[in-house]
């Protein structure tokens, strides 16, 4: 007898896993990312001293950072649980863990990696305020196209039966969509010539780490809570 958790049960687990994942990512961001943000702000202020800040640096780099990653994690957790609820039956796998982790991996690829490689994130002091609206729109378009690329890969895999052919078809479809997307999306050159290359690199790696930890912890956390739900619901009744 299959177990059918309700959507609220699934959603609650997604939100919880998202909160924990967001706080974990925030911890990494605080330890690994903040030194680079502070260094970039020091460069920025050397060029143009800022006026009185509304929020102090200590609050931005501590509670503010954890609030941001925590809320972002909750939002992504809710979206993951909703996608799981709606798409679970189409994922053609008997394993809930595989289904949950596949969705998280797809999201990490489409929402993080595809936009990241086209528009690598920048620390403070990099970026022309005049183009922020165009860059924001382009970033959102890259996220959307990243999800389209992942979807195209999943559809292409279904056209084949042999595992090798499935993987090759998925990779080809993904690359075609990403190549077209990268060609169509605008390019921005916004790093000042004299900005330290190592600082830029270190910041970008810490940002990638933050986002990877968020999605990995979210996928594992959600899958783990699903497994507990199965276990708990099944224990009273004897499974044949």
């Amino acid at each position, binding site marked *: 007898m*299959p177990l*059918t*958790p*309700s*959507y609220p049960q*699934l*959603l609650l687990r997604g939100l919880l896993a998202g909160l924990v994942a967001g706080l974990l990512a*925030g911890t990494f*961001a605080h330890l690994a*990312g903040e030194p680079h*943000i502070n260094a970039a702000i020091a460069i920025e202020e050397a060029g143009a001293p800022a006026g009185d800040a*509304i*929020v102090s640096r200590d*609050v*931005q*780099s501590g*509670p*503010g*950072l*954890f*609030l*941001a*990653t925590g*809320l*972002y994690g*909750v*939002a*992504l957790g*809710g*979206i993951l649980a*909703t996608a799981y*609820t*709606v798409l*679970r*039956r189409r994922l053609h796998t*008997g*394993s*809930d863990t595989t289904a949950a982790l596949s969705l998280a991996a797809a999201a990490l690829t489409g929402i*993080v990696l595809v*936009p*990241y490689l086209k*528009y690598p*994130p*920048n*620390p*403070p002091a990099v*970026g022309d*305020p005049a183009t*922020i609206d165009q860059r*924001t729109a382009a970033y959102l378009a890259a996220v959307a196209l990243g999800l389209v690329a992942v979807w195209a890969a999943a559809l292409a895999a279904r056209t084949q039966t042999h595992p090798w052919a499935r993987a090759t078809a998925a990779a080809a479809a993904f690359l075609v969509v990403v190549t077209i997307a990268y060609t169509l999306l605008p390019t921005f050159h916004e790093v000042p010539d004299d900005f330290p290359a190592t600082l830029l690199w270190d*910041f970008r790696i*810490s*940002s990638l780490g*933050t*986002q990877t930890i*968020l999605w990995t912890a979210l996928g594992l956390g959600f899958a783990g809570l699903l497994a507990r*739900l*199965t276990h708990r619901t099944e224990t009273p009744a004897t*499974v*044949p």
Partner: protein
Amino acid sequence: MPKAQALTTPTISTRLLATAAGVTGIMLLLAYLVAFDQGALSQSGTYLHELMHDGRHLLGVPCH
């Protein structure tokens, strides 16, 4: 098939889809609040925007 442990998901009814769409909308608003809002949504001036400034950078969102 060895999938006695698998859960199924609720049947996809129109009502479930409507709820799921509503929840997705709320979640996107929450993500927007963190990533892009400059006070229009939060009605806090730029306080929340400034408060979550470092998170925006490290979450890979264009900031300024």
